[in-house]
């Protein structure tokens, strides 16, 4: 599979070059390199630098109606690069008025981080809520997604999606036929803010009943506010809050809540300082005696970013992680994380 992917990438890339602008094909490659060093533990097993992801993306019009996107990515999994098909879909904004749709494999259009490739995130690692509810990179599946712009005097867009649901998150197996496939929706609105800013708010819902009859329901709110000043994103405020209800057939339901908050301020046109607050808790957690156990996992990551341009990023973060149960801190981990990302070739315009 790996070799096949590489051959395909090389072939399509060479075809793209020779096709030039006549076909409208755009090719880009994004590389995401990360490293971390534990500070307060003697465990240095994971002190290493890795190419977390190398992605090749091809986009372009298929004909006068449809557009296509194809991307392959090689991920580092336990230090070994694993190449795989990432996204592959056909879509159109020209067939149905005020609507767009896509059919194929894609990251599900819910939340905020899930809709952006990892190298475009404003921080290094996935917050716990993202990791637990969607997978570290995001929930990927094959299906159909439809977005309609509601005819209102303000921006209101509704997204509905239905995907196979054989697997959920980022899986490398075939999965099993679910009882109810993954179905999801997002209602998004936008509000202009004083001093030239703007904020997008999304309300999300996702549900799937797995083959073993475990029903998973996700409710979430995503929020992003930006104030731009020329090339610098002067202020960014990004957050997501999710609640997950897991209802297995035989045992009682488990509820979990997680959120993150990331405020970031530009120090100069090219440097930024932000702090990621990451919080996750299992609601109604009880011990064997039935006593309620308060619990949470929290992380604080001051993050310094240098962006020479929109095509390259260097990032350094100091991660302070706490695990608390019943009022006691049971784990305290501190580490330094670093990231370098770059994009070569064409790069599609950014969504908000």
């Amino acid at each position, binding site marked *: 599979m790996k070799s096949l992917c590489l051959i395909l990438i090389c072939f399509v890339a060479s075809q793209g070059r020779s096709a030039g602008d006549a076909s409208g094909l755009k090719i880009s490659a994004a590389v995401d390199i990360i490293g971390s060093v534990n500070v307060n533990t003697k465990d240095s097993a994971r002190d290493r630098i890795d190419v977390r992801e190398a992605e090749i993306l091809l986009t372009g019009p298929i004909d006068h109606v449809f557009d296509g996107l194809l991307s392959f990515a090689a991920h580092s999994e336990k230090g070994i690069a694993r190449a795989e098909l990432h996204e592959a879909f056909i879509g159109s904004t020209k067939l149905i008025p005020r609507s*767009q749709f896509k059919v194929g494999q894609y990251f599900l259009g819910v939340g905020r981080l899930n809709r952006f490739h990892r190298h475009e995130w404003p921080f290094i690692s996935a917050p716990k809520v993202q990791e637990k509810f969607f997978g570290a990179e995001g929930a990927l599946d094959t299906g159909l997604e439809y977005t309609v712009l509601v005819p209102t005097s303000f921006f209101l867009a509704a997204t509905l999606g239905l995907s196979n649901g054989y697997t959920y998150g980022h899986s490398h197996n075939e999965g099993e036929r679910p009882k109810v496939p993954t179905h999801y929706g997002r209602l998004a609105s936008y509000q*202009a803010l004083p001093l030239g800013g703007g904020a997008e708010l999304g309300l999300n819902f996702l549900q799937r009943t797995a083959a073993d009859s475990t029903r998973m329901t996700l409710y979430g709110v995503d929020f992003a506010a930006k104030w731009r000043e020329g*090339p610098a994103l002067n202020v960014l405020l990004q957050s997501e809050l999710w609640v997950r209800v897991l209802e297995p057939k035989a045992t009682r339901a488990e509820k979990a809540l997680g959120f993150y908050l990331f405020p970031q301020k530009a120090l100069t046109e090219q440097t930024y300082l932000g702090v990621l607050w990451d919080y996750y808790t299992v609601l109604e957690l009880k011990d064997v005696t039935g006593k309620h156990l308060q619990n949470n996992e929290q992380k604080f990551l001051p993050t310094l970013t240098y962006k020479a341009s929109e095509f390259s990023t260097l990032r350094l973060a100091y991660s302070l992680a706490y695990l608390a149960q019943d009022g006691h801190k049971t784990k305290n981990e501190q580490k330094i994380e670093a990231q370098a990302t770059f994009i070569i070739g064409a790069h599609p315009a*950014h*969504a908000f």
Partner: protein
Amino acid sequence: MRSKWISILSLFLLAPVCWAKIQLVSTIPDLAWLAQEIGGEQVRAKALLKGRENPHYVDAVPDFIRQVSDADVVCQVGMDLEVGYLPAILARSGNAKIQSGGSGFCDVSKSIPVLEKPFGAIDRSMGDVHPFGNPHFYLSPTAMMFVADEIRNALLKVKPDQKDLFESGIKTVKARLQIILTANRDKLKTFQPEHMLVAEYHKEFVYFFNDYGFKSLGSVEEKPGVPPSIGRLSEFALAAKKAKVRFILAADYHSAKNLKRFEELSGIPVIQVPTLIQGELGSDAYASLQNQIVDKIVHVLTVVKK
């Protein structure tokens, strides 16, 4: 009798279509102003930008998607100026006619006599180079006359029956652009701009300098879109001083810190001006913008002369 009812019904159904104004959305306000002047009461033109933004760095704001979703015509400056946000907006608009290549898509740069089109291989190590040439032609009244033709053509595709009105509009607006040009050239005449060396912070006044006869030493930015280093500021300050550059023009959204430092190093006045129409799109909006820039130049030259 039956055909009479059909005719009346058709009239009611088609009337809103025939009488509806053309909804035109442009990226920068200057294009919306021009479209409104050409189309008059047949057009409702508005711009995505407010005129205070740096047009190179704009987010694909969701509200832009809503605005273009109902548009009959979308006008862009082109030459990759909007490449960072407009394609993302159009792709999510669900509006087939305003997609690139569609009947309502208007790239006004098509007939512009382009300046500074790079020769040979270009890549990103050279900074934010516009591969199709310098896109800041909207600061030149002469170039805006070519832009007017493109907008007229776009409007005609939507309402071919309004040809006379659009032709009349274009005639009036071209005459007005000529008046703006002549009046401001007259203001500058005494300073003999053709014998004057000037410079700019970013290469966005090239067409403007051409219109008014200024000769330019170049830009403070060594690579377009890349903030100049201290070394570059000092080097260019020295070169500008030696070449007797009279002033530096910079857009009002550029870094005041860098401009101040340059002024201190060179002793050459830096004039910060708006580069896009800001505020209401009244008939005299473009004249006000041009007058404002020229008046600031005249003021600085007068003070320096004294």
